[in-house]
């Protein structure tokens, strides 16, 4: 396994933005809104920083894992 730098949260190992995952991470979200809504864009949860961030964001810890 090797870690490589990535250009945005979208490609990061720590970033999760599948709608079902986002709804599970934010209880009550689907009561009066939805993770499938356009307003969410591609935002998701960063498990490294424990933040809810846009997919286009970036930080120093952003990495992807590749099988070697």
């Amino acid at each position: 396994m090797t870690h490589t730098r990535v250009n945005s949260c979208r490609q990061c190992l720590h970033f999760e933005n599948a709608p079902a995952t986002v709804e599970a991470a934010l209880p009550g979200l689907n009561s009066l809104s939805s993770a499938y809504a356009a307003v969410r864009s591609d935002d998701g949860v960063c498990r490294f920083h424990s933040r809810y961030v846009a997919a286009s964001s970036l930080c120093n810890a952003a990495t992807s894992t590749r099988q070697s």
Partner: protein
Amino acid sequence: MSDLFKKEDWWAVWIGLALIGGAVLTFAYGGSIKWLAIAPQKWSHLSEVGTQLQQSGPRFLALFGVWAFAFGLSAAALGLSVARFLPAFLALFIVAGVLYFLGLWDQASHYNLEPPLVALVLGLAVSNSWGTPRRLQPALRVEFYIKTGIVLLGASLPLTLIAWAGPVAIGQAAIVSLVTFGVIYLSAVRLGLDRRLAATLGTGGAVCGVSGAIAIGGAVGAKKEDVSVAISLVVVWAIVMIFALPLVARSLHLSTGIAGAWIGTSEFADAAGLAAAQTYGAYAGTVAGVNGQPDSAVTAFTLMKVIGRDMWIGVWAFVLSLLATTRWERTGVESRTDAGEIWRRFPKFVIGFLVASAIVTFISRGYDYAAYKKVVLPALVAPLQVLRTWTFTLAFLSIGLTTRLRDFAAVGARPFYAFTAGVAANVILGYVLSTQVFGSFWDRLGQ
């Protein structure tokens, strides 16, 4: 896959416009989709319900088939399991049908059994006592049903009405949104809360509820638990307002147009506001002192909320994300925003709402008002209103069934105080603007 097929906003547009297209085509050839758009009729004895079901059973089945196909197809495209969605949707459709029938009992208003409120109370009771059955959960898509209903609602509103009332709605909503956001944001910052949480709470209260909170939470990179706090506060206050706003408006004898505008200004979420507005509309003609057309409450609400508030969420996200990047303390995550944010977060179902209005306005152009009421309304518009009522009922039922209070994040006193200050400012200012400043305008809309 393109956003055109992976976001529920677009699927609401496709479903709504496909139904309107079918209705228009049938109308053009001298027919109507009335057979398909089946609605329960008024009844006074249970035996009459049995008779209706016996006579119209195939029509209810056909309607279920159309909804199951449309929502099932979109569920598949959105990545949900169709095998789990369809049985759950069948159960939801049956309960929604029972509530629709209940609302048409001739004693329903006597016992205050307004379908939106009954749906909400029933759902809340189930989800917060023994729990919503796991098998039902795949079909509980509040926002999807409500967005589809709003697209269908566009067919009831002439484009000229939207053009006439839109600027007033935008003006009133802008005043209230800016004041409410300012009150929540400044209160939160003064109470020592993080600016990103303050902004997330502020847009949740001022713009479009939970959708506003997640849009801004993502745009500014808020802490995950702070987004959860904002969601909890918005949902709880939105549910309180579903009951409180119609009750207060009723005691003040507001007309349906004025009450709809007030609800559109002071409710936080589309689904919650439509539940309150539909409830209030039903008071017209049944509650002494409540004047106006029943549909005017929903019309005024939609103009105020959708055109006045929802449409602008992308602008809020862009501006606040710029502020977060350039002015606020750094978090370790660098937000890289651009003006494209405005379109990416734009609630696309609004496009369907406007296109629906344009289509029916175009079809109706050759008819004077009398001919419109005699020909276009019963054959084209009324069946689409029935389909809209079905989608709204599915949504109202889903609100309660998905609201499990014990799962919500612990909120803490300071976020509660800040958000509640905004709620108070919003409700008072919304009342003054809807009844005093623009009162005659909204009243006229309701006649």
